[in-house]
């Protein structure tokens, strides 16, 4: 996987609401089979643009994320397996 300590990158759960980012890599091994399958179904893939839109009211979990033209909700733990780089706009 990518270098873990690049200030330009972060995991998706650390991304601020409203910040767009490009998916660099997904740590499929950190997810169980059904979770990985679902993420693929939602269109998570290297290179796609994602944007956190809303956070759950308790513990800021789950996270609503725009991926492609869809909005999906995943838990913070699942989002932490996704490595992203914020895009400038």
């Amino acid at each position, binding site marked *: 996987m990518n270098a873990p300590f690049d200030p330009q990158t972060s995991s998706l759960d650390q991304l601020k609401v409203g910040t767009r980012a490009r998916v660099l890599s997904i740590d499929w091994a950190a997810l169980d089979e059904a979770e990985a399958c679902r993420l693929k179904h939602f269109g998570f893939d290297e290179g796609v643009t994602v944007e956190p839109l809303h956070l759950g009211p308790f513990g800021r979990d789950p996270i609503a994320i725009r991926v492609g033209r869809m909005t999906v*909700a995943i838990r913070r733990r699942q989002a932490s397996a996704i490595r992203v780089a914020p895009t400038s706009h």
Partner: protein
Amino acid sequence: MNPLPLVAVAGSPNAGKSALFNALTGARQKVGNYPGVTVERHSGRLLLGDGRPVELVDLPGAYSLDPASLDEAVTRDVLLGKQKGERQPDALVIVLDASNLDNHLRFALQLVELGLPTIVALNMVDLARRDGLELDPKALERELGLPVVETVAVRRRGIADLHAAIDDMLSAPRCGVHDHVKSDLLHLQRRAREIASAAVVNETPVRRWTHRLDSLLLHPVVGPIILALVMFVMFQAVFAWSQTPVAWIADAVAWASGIASDLIPAGLVRSMVVDGAIAGVGAVITFLPQILILFFFILLLEGTGYMVRAAFLMDRLMHGVGLSGRAFIPLLSSFACAVPGIMATRTIDNEKDRLTTILIAPLMTCSARLPVYTLLISAFIPNTRLMWGVGLQGVVMFGLYICGIAGALLAAFVLRRGVLKGGSSGFMMELPKYQWPPLKDVAIGILTRAQIFLKRAGTIILGTTIVLWALASIPQAAPGQKQSEVSIAGHIASGIETVVKPIGFNHDIALALLPAMAAREVAVSAIATVYALDSSDEDAVEKSLAERLRHAWPLPTALAFLAWFVFAPQCVSTIAVTRRETNGWK
């Protein structure tokens, strides 16, 4: 005889598949279960231009042929002709959400690989336009090599065109069916994006109002407040709107028993018809108004897209006891009645989450237990005021509800760490666009659910009432004997009494426990009957039941009875529905 040609409607969740299916088949639908699984099978008929009927089946929503849920597994198996009790479809209608092509086309591409005659319904083109998305269906047709029809299923637009296209498809000669060619998911996804971008003519970025609405409804502070208000209105409606129809039903039942009493001479037959059959039917339909109102709200919340938002808001809290946010609405509905609550758990795709929710739902204090609580509290708890506006009786009532909830959460916690351990990935959901569901679709949904309720719970409640009547009335008491002791039920109650005596129950309670199995609130009338049947003097009958109980039962007995009702085994209809919904596995 040849079976009718079978056309399957397939698509991803939230593509508007069910609305399209409803638009094509109208109210002529059959809802059943696929054999051996708890997945619903919706089917209906469609007439072709030459009058030939076709069977249309609405497959469960799926993101791909590689299943991540039970629904998706059924969809795959039906499409590949491997589903038990279902023939392989002769043709396909693929439903796509026009504003979500790059995702939905991936599944469509997998379906196209099957080689069945296929039509694509490009659905919700109005919402896509609202989002500033201009599409070229001709380009999509070229790229996919399939006929594409633009539809707005909820407004019934484009349905005639789609109907005509199905007609053409089934009239054309058939070619062979391929086996499932398994293309790589990510490869398909990339191809889907290419096709989607080829089909998009123009894309103006507009602030979508779904996003704006979500900023309010999913707001960390405002969101939960709105959710609480929505739930409050729902409960208010369930109890307030149902009062009038319930009164009508009570009148109708009284009227029917009056007629029956006039027609049939006094004796065992009259007693069976009046106290057994009519009372049984009455008990079933008294439940209907509340349940239908509850279903109305559940369907409305599902149809508008708010249900998923409620799950989003509550997920973290539910996650604490090992459940997903999806369990919230079913559990809340169980405060009115566990039966619709359990039926609403179908939206939870994780099997273990779903089973846990089903098992704890009956611990929520359903409305049928309310009369029992009210009676005993008014009889035994002094109506003292603790502080301004807060009375002891109210506090006890509240406490009983809290006991139920605490018990349920504890049970969930234990279940998720014991028998139902693992796999709490239940919360990965698409947040669909908000839309107003056509009231006709809501009506169809209420109708099919009412049928399911009457078939599953109704027959059981009716049957149990008649059996219990027989137990309580045979053999008939001779003058001077107590009916409640002579009857079979009386003997059974004496048997139960020896078992439950240590926890403080007396013979009357043991007797009331039997009919309370059919329906909780019947316990009140059962106790009333026991005292009424046994008493000879007129005044005593008129004495209020609460008054009588206060003299007959010591306080600990009353409290034991209340505790029993908080945690007791469920009523028969709940057990029946639980069995159906879980296919019997426990």
